[in-house]
């Protein structure tokens, strides 16, 4: 390897760095630009600008929709529903092992959740090295697992790269954590883009915007509002509206579960996601209402537990 690297300069100049060649006129242009302190090129390429505009439009649209959905039922916010036996039984067994905690159902969920973990400033700030270890283990074990079952070579290669970068993160010294996190995050974002081409997309990407709810409690309160709302605009009928509640609640519950550090709350969120999925897929009106009532009760319990946890 050392022998090969000795000719690295020639190798790179002939290949990947050959566009770096500058003619006399290029250098003159650069000199003039520096003297005039004027940018030769546009600093902001078109692609990012368009991405930004698209995201802004999406936020405005979603914000308008949420504003319509919420608001009229403040009096119902503090209502605590009757305890749900089924939920309570599960509530008693909320302690889950770390290994179970690390299992994710598919590649898209893994990438989405790993991205969330990497972008969770509170956890990095509070736990630093310990969190780096945890995220590194999570990334390494899941990347191995998915690399073993993926068929697309580009995806497998990227997963293997993520696995290696995860090892670095686990071994990182305090002053290396930031850089190792950045490297891992870059690889994860690249794989998210690659995976999209193969239709591997997490549904949470479609409906969740970071700015929509300030925290989990705001989302839970808004969910209760939606369940008890009398109108169902902009949906054509109540059934479609209720299915949408299921769809959105499932995505948000998974989203907050991925961010949650406390295992009991995480488990509750996962159960909410399961019930929400039933609502999304239930065709019979009566059964759907039963599921909705169950969801309502679970949300109350979670709100209560969150409140007690804080106290």
């Amino acid at each position: 390897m050392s022998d090969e690297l000795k000719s690295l300069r020639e190798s790179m100049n002939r290949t990947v760095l050959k566009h770096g060649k500058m003619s006399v006129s290029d250098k003159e242009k650069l000199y003039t630009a520096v003297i005039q302190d004027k940018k030769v090129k546009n600093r902001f390429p078109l692609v990012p600008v368009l991405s930004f505009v698209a995201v802004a439009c999406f936020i405005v649209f979603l914000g308008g929709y949420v504003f319509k959905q919420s608001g009229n039922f403040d009096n119902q916010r503090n209502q605590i529903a009757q305890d749900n036996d089924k939920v309570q039984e599960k509530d008693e067994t909320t302690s889950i092992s770390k290994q179970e905690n690390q299992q994710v159902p598919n590649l898209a969920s893994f990438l989405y959740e790993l991205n969330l973990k990497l972008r969770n400033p509170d956890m990095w700030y509070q736990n630093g090295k310990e969190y780096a270890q945890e995220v590194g283990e999570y990334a390494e074990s899941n990347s191995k697992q998915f690399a073993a079952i993926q068929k697309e070579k580009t995806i497998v290669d990227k997963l293997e790269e993520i696995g290696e970068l995860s090892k670095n993160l686990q071994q990182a010294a305090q002053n290396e954590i930031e850089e190792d996190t950045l490297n891992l995050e870059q690889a994860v974002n690249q794989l998210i883009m690659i995976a999209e081409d193969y239709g591997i997309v997490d549904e949470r990407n479609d409906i969740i915007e970071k700015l929509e709810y300030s925290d989990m409690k705001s989302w839970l309160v808004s969910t209760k509002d939606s369940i008890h709302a009398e109108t169902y605009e902009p949906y054509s009928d109540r059934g479609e509206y209720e299915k949408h509640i299921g769809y959105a609640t499932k995505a948000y519950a998974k989203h907050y579960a991925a961010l949650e550090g406390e295992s009991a709350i995480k488990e509750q969120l996962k159960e909410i996601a399961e019930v929400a999925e039933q609502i999304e897929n239930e065709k019979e009106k009566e059964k759907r209402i039963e599921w909705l009532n169950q969801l309502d009760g679970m949300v109350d319990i979670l709100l209560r537990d969150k409140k007690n946890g804080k106290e």
Partner: protein
Amino acid sequence: MSLGKVEVSPPSKEELLKELIELYAESIKRLAYTYVKNWSAAEDITQEVFIKCYEKIEGFRGDSSYKTWLYKITRNKCKDYLKSKWYRSFFPTDFMQERIGNNELSTEDQVINKLEDMELSQKVLALPTKYREIIILFYYEQLKMKEIEALTHLNVDTIKTRLRRGKKMLQKKMERSEGNE
């Protein structure tokens, strides 16, 4: 005819800038590319490096060579760029770049693509930043350990460790791609 002493005035700021651009612009652009892997960004960074150089050249104390000084500015600009929210949030980074790059390849380039040096170069660029930069500075720029130390503010032991780990990762990548062929 006077045979008196000829006084040589020091070069002006502008003359010095011109000389530094002539000597180092190309290397700086290439060095920047090895960090950001995007030619458009590398060009912008090169310009920013020389703008800073022009601003600070009068205060340059000569503690290091101009080359090391300019490389240090380049490294800092590249790190700022990679850490910027703008880059992290929106820029399609290497993946898009790889695609654009591949689309732009001529038939001749595609042949070159198969050659070993292309493979080695791409594998070096695919290394994580901290290993890549040391490999580039040591093997591509052929800087001495002391120069890398001055430029990166890392101690020599860390540089050696990164060099060793970088080579190991590169070795693995090469073996893996050979295995796939």
